[in-house]
């Protein structure tokens, strides 16, 4: 018993998590850019035959339509490629553990710390993102829930439209300063 107790104690993280740019925000007329709190993320790769089982395990139906996403109970599955999804869980549940229970062919790799999420929200959100992203972000071309890996200036990002006037921008941790700064500069110009 004593040994088990010691183990339990040691299992708790004795060091703090220090997310990149934690708490950074920028408000400009018509748009607010802010760092999102940490989330659980995996990169999921799988053939068609495995999708039903994986969807069930994850509790969200993996979308098969390009440039789309599906969300359920705080967990979003973003179609990134024909056999590639990014799962973002904002409810504190671990999609990696959920996939581990599935025996069908797939690859699930944890990327919770690889990526950071940045929220761009407000009437000028699309214009702000368009300062560096060459895609058409009108609601017709990039509707609610649309998701795509793309470019923002000189960085790769994953873009998810969370509302008519709100986006989630995901980028790699070390690019977050660049991406946040670019979005901030763009935000200051976006209302014009």
């Amino acid at each position, binding site marked *: 018993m004593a040994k088990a107790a010691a183990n339990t104690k*040691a299992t708790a993280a004795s060091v703090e998590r*220090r997310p990149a740019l934690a708490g950074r925000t920028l408000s400009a007329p018509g748009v607010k850019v802010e760092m999102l709190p940490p989330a659980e993320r995996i990169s999921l790769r799988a053939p068609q035959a495995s999708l039903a089982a994986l969807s069930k395990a994850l509790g969200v139906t993996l979308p098969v339509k390009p440039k789309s996403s599906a969300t359920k109970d705080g967990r979003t599955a973003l179609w990134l490629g024909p056999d590639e999804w990014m799962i973002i869980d904002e409810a504190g549940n671990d999609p990696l553990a959920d996939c581990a229970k599935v025996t069908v062919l797939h*690859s699930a790799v944890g990327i919770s710390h690889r990526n950071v999420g940045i929220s761009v929200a407000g009437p000028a959100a699309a214009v702000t993102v368009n*300062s*560096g992203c060459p895609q058409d972000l009108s609601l017709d071309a990039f509707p609610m829930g649309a998701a795509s890996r793309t470019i923002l*200036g000189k960085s790769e990002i994953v873009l998810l439209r969370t509302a008519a006037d709100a986006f989630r921008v995901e980028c790699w941790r*070390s*690019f977050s300063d660049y991406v946040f700064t670019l979005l901030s500069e763009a935000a200051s110009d976006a209302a014009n």
Partner: protein
Amino acid sequence: MSAAFRISGAGRLSQAKTASFSFDDKSYTGIEGDTLASALLANGVHLVGRSFKYHRPRGFLSAGAEEPNALVQIVRDDARKTPNVRATVQELYDGLTANSQNRWPSLAFDVGAVNDLASPLFSAGFYYKTFMWPKSAWKNLYEPKIRAAAGLGVSPEKPDPDHYAARYAHCEVLVLGGGAAGIAAALAAAETGVRVILADEQAEFGGSLRFESGAKIDGENGFAWAQAAIARLKAMDNVRVLSRTTAFGYYAQNFVGLVERVSDHLKSPGRELARERLWQVRANRVVIATGAIERHMVFANNDRPGVMLASAARTYLNHYGVAVGKNVGVYTANDSAYAAAIDLKKAGVNIAAIVDLRDNPAGPVIDEARALGIEINFGRAVVSAGGKLRVSSMTVQPKNGGGERTIPVDAILMSAGWTPSVHLFSQSRGKVAFNDETRRFVPGTYAQDCVSVGACNGTDGLDATIDEAYAAGAKAAKEAGGKDSSGKTGKGAKPKVDAGESWSRGMLGAGPGAGPGTTVKAFVDFQNDVTAKDIRQAVHEGMRSIEHVKRFTTNGMATDQGKTSNMHGLAIAADELGKPIPQVGLTTFRAPYTPVTFGSIVGHARGALFDPTRRTATHGWAASQGAVFEDVGHWKRAWYFPKAGEDMHKAVDRECVTVRKVGGLFDASTLGKIEVVGPDAAKFMELLYTNPWEKLETGRCRYGIMLREDGFIYDDGVVGRLAPDRFHVTTTTGGAPRVMNHMEDYLQTEFPHLNVWLTSITEQWAVIAVQGPKSREIIAPLVEGIDMSDEAMPHMSVREGKICGVPTRLFRMSFTGERGFEVNVPADYGEAVWEALWAEGQKHGAVAYGTESMHVLRAEKGYIIVGQDTDGTVTPNDAGLDWAVGKKKTDFVGIRGLTRSDLVAKGRKQLVGLKTKDPKVVLEEGAQIVADPKQPIPMKMIGHVTSSYWSENCGRSIALALVAGGRDRMGETLYVPMPNGTVEVEVTGMVFVDEKGEHLNG
């Protein structure tokens, strides 16, 4: 207080809002809404610049973007001195400071004007002839002198403090040009509900409606109609209206570059405002409504200040309320100049005479001019303008010769007709066609989904223009998916033209008195000082193509790109060649339409946004410890950690010695990491790396080498097997993205049958290398669930467990030759775990070390760095790594390349160690190596130094080198010739420390 040439009651500016400004240190007053040109003209100032080559005094030719002469320097402060600004485009603001250019000591007395007297020396092609001899003088004498003398404005020397915005935009219909045609097209397109962008380079929309006082649309004055229409468009959600915005480039698939001048017209733009904004617009359909540009008449001294385009004078009067003179002459070959004369006359300006080259023109404007009592001379030409700093007279002669008459004037308005602005159409790769009847180039064959309307399409008359433009706008929108709104009445209906002005044809080429055989200075291209004579001379000297004539004379090569000069130049050349104009051809129109600042092209990509700067999770800690950083690709890496009083060498010496004696911490997070997952993971690894992988046990690691198909080393790194179907692959820092691409390429296109996937985990894991004899003692207290004994966790193994309570992938591996570990933890925990390890390390006296010590430590062990000790032509055998190539394998990328005859030939360059005979001498990396230092130059080079360091651990310098047949030269003396003497070196093995490798378990 009104300026002398401001006409009360004329123009559209509110007289109340004055703005003071200075030109060449003299103060003037203008009105808000003025351009610098209109404000100067209101003050009677015509002389504003000196020409490029002859330094002739120049004034304003135009009232728009086509201006070749009136280039000035606008000075806001030390860092913001914009040269070559067209005064006709620069909007006035209170406090504006402008200076003239290309003159010394003053604009009125310019020493460089001797060039005008010496002009025979500077005739066409003078660059190619005058400065040919002696050859050496070009570089040392002629070129610097010419450059100094010929410059226009002066560039600021400080960094540009302004910032520039950029954005991508998409629309169904993009309308370029906001005159009557563009507005009509935009209205029609907007009604259908599609996204419309309308852009115009002027501050106010209307185009020629700004000066055409006779236009009436929907019952309103043309300009007022334009403003109302723009207000309506601005109010629509699907329309974006951009003023002060120039479409400068038309690229593939209807991709158009626009520059919006956001704050150049403001007195003190706030820091939050960008100076310019670049719009990169992708349009489904483009409507080009860029209008036409009036041509000048080509006659002697047609460049004197005060000689200008008739439409310009009309714009200054009708829009800005400024008379360009008090006693004005008119020289024309078409009707439109009459309208200028009539408007000026009505405003109280004396029209000295209209000189019309045509024999017997008739029409309402001519009748009206006559009715106003203006003297009209048909069949006559102005053969010369008098005056120097300002025109003072015009000399008139019957066009076929005869008695001259000199008429005193203070301005001459000229019009040779109108040239359709086909620039953007041509940039879209459309082919222009020459209309023999109207003698102008108009859009012919289209290459993209665009349409030209109005004057730029050769459509004359306001009625026809509105008809055409409205229909084109509606059609473009419909094709792009808009709703059908035809037959609409009321507000959205087609504008109705109540009255319009019609344009008639004009003439091309030199006028009488400037024809063949004459040597007068009748300018074709003002900015580059090209005369009619120069064009003819080019033809005489053998130029046949207009492209050659252009380059020989520089006609059309100035910053205005020949907007007013191209057609005249072409006509004169065609005439001289005796060929019809289309056979001589038109020079190619290229972007940009008007000059574009570097700032707008660069946009946000300056300073911190020039390129991403990538920092690792421990960056803050390293910075707080005083680390010096170096750039490695986009990454900032801690280079060394100097203590007080230490220079780089002392710090590195201390770090290297301590790592081998005790231990050290190193941030290896930037190494590329790829997780290879799937049942076929080992099979895939077998194909991508030279090594065997199938039999690598779970929990073990292997140093892998990746080749390209040609057999040369592409990348290397340690690979750990986490599970039968899961590998944790590391790559070089710089190689990470391309290795991923290389692996994906083979997986997707050559081995798609394999069930395996690749995920970049470079940034998922922070990597803390803990190296040195005490490394295990430093780590062990923090680790949970991993037996770190040598038996349970031997060198080259990997375990998963926890450190400081967070998950870790703990590798036992070494890039120093000492016992070593690499602690992988999720990146957000990286810094905190580092701090915990650092605290443990402190107990043993360990150091933090940077990339420089990392390099030295690995070189002491002969571990290579791909990209430093290899250069894309090095095989595993060359690098002494044959042991890492699976001999029994039948396939891997590069297996065939390795057997190429040259790759197995004798005498290849091989990686060896070098020791200098003098241990204190540190070789230079990249230095060439020779066998015989006494041979004549050029010497036969047999290799080069790839890595070279001072090794405090060895007490001497060490080096690695690629040397031909290197491994057969052990013990040989070779030579490294350097500028300050030859260095003797001995060829050795590559391992300088612990040759037996005992430290790995030490």
